[in-house]
C-alpha cells in the first residue's frame, strides 16, 4: 500500500460504509474480499463458458436441445457477471439500479422476441418468392 498525501482516503468521515455502495463500487473492505469476489466470478465464468463451448462442439447433449442449453448457460453467466463483477446487490442503495435493470431487461426482451415474432409471421404470410417474381410485368 503506497499512500502519499494525495492518496488519502476521501471517505474517512463517512459512516456505515457497507450500506453505501453502487454497482461496481463497494466500500473499502479488506482487499481479500475483492480478490475473492474476482476469483469467484472468474471461476464460475470459466466453468460456464467451457460448458457452452463443449456443448456446441460435441454431441453430449441431444441435438435439438443444444440451443436452449446454450441460452440457459449464457443467462447464468450474465447473472454471474452482474453479481460478481458489476456488484448488483439487494442492498437499500441498489434498489434503483435493480429497478433500472428490470426495465432494461423488459425492453430488451420486447425488442428481440417481438422482432422475431413479427418477422416470422410476416414471412409466413408473404407470397412465395417465385410467385412474387411472376407478378412483375
Amino acid at each position, binding site marked *: *500500500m*503506497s*499512500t502519499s498525501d*494525495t*492518496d488519502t*482516503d*476521501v*471517505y*474517512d*468521515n*463517512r*459512516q*456505515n*460504509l*457497507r*450500506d*453505501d*455502495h*453502487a*454497482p*461496481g463500487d463497494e466500500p*473499502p473492505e479488506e*482487499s481479500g474480499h*475483492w*480478490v475473492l469476489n*474476482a476469483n469467484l*466470478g*472468474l471461476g464460475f*465464468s*470459466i466453468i460456464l463458458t467451457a460448458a*457452452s*463451448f463443449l*456443448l*456446441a*462442439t460435441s454431441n453430449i447433449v441431444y441435438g435439438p436441445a*443444444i*440451443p436452449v442449453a*446454450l*441460452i440457459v448457460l*449464457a443467462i447464468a*453467466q*450474465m447473472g454471474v*457477471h452482474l453479481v*460478481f*463483477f458489476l456488484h448488483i*446487490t*439487494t*442492498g*437499500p*442503495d441498489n434498489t434503483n439500479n435493480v429497478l*433500472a*435493470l428490470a*426495465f*432494461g431487461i423488459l425492453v*430488451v426482451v420486447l*425488442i*428481440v422476441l417481438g*422482432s*422475431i415474432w413479427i*418477422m416470422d409471421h410476416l414471412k409466413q404470410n408473404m407470397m412465395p418468392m417465385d410467385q412474387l417474381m411472376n407478378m412483375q410485368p
Partner: protein
Amino acid sequence: MTDTGLPASVEAIRRVREDPHRLGHRAHGSAEPAAGTGQGATGPADKRILVGYGFWIYLLSDIIIFSCFFAAFAVQRAATAGGPTIADIVDVQRVGFETAALLLSSYTCMLSFAATNARNRLWTLIFLFLTGLLGLIFVLLELWEFVELADRGFTPQRSAMLTSFYGLVGLHGLHVTLGGVWLATMMAQVFIKGFRREIIHRLICFNLFWHALDIVWIGIFTIVYLMGVH
C-alpha cells in the same frame, strides 16, 4: 478503514446483529435508514451512488442498442441470398481465444479496482495495463477474422445475414476499441493525478463499462457463434 467512531467490537456486534450473513443490507425494520442512501430523512444519496446509477442507466441504454442489432441478426440469420451460411464463417477456436481474452480482461479489470480500493497506484496501473493488453488481443483477433472473411469474398454487402453479422460483431468491437482509448486516458489520469475523488468515480464508471461489454460478448458468442456452428 471503516471509521464509525465506535470501538471495533461494538461495530462488529452491530454488523452481526443487523447483517448476520453479510448480504450487504440490514435486516428488515431493525434500524433507521442507512445514511446517504437517499432514504427516509437521511439526506440525498452519495455522489458515488449517483455517478454509478447514472452510468448504469447509460449502460442499459447501450445494451438496448445492442439488442436491436441482436434482433436484426436473429431475423436475418437465414437470409443468406445463396451465399455462406453462419456455420460456414464461424471459427470456433478463434472465438474461444477471443472469449478467453475478454474474460481474463474482465478479471484483471476487477483486480485493478481492488487495487484502487486499497489506494495502490502501482498495482492499479499494472492491472489496467493488462486489461488493455487483453482487450487489444481481442480486437486484433476480431480484425483478423473480418479480414479473413473479406478475403474469401464474404463482405457485408454479400447478404443480409452478413450485414447484420458485421453490424453486431463490429459494433461490439468498436465499443471495446473505444473502451481501450478510455482505459489509456484513465491510466494517464491515475498516473498523474492519483486517487482523487473524481478519478475514482471515473474508474468506477470504466469498470462498469468494461464488464458490461463482457456481458454483451456472452450474448454474441452464444447466439451468433455457438448457435451458428451447430
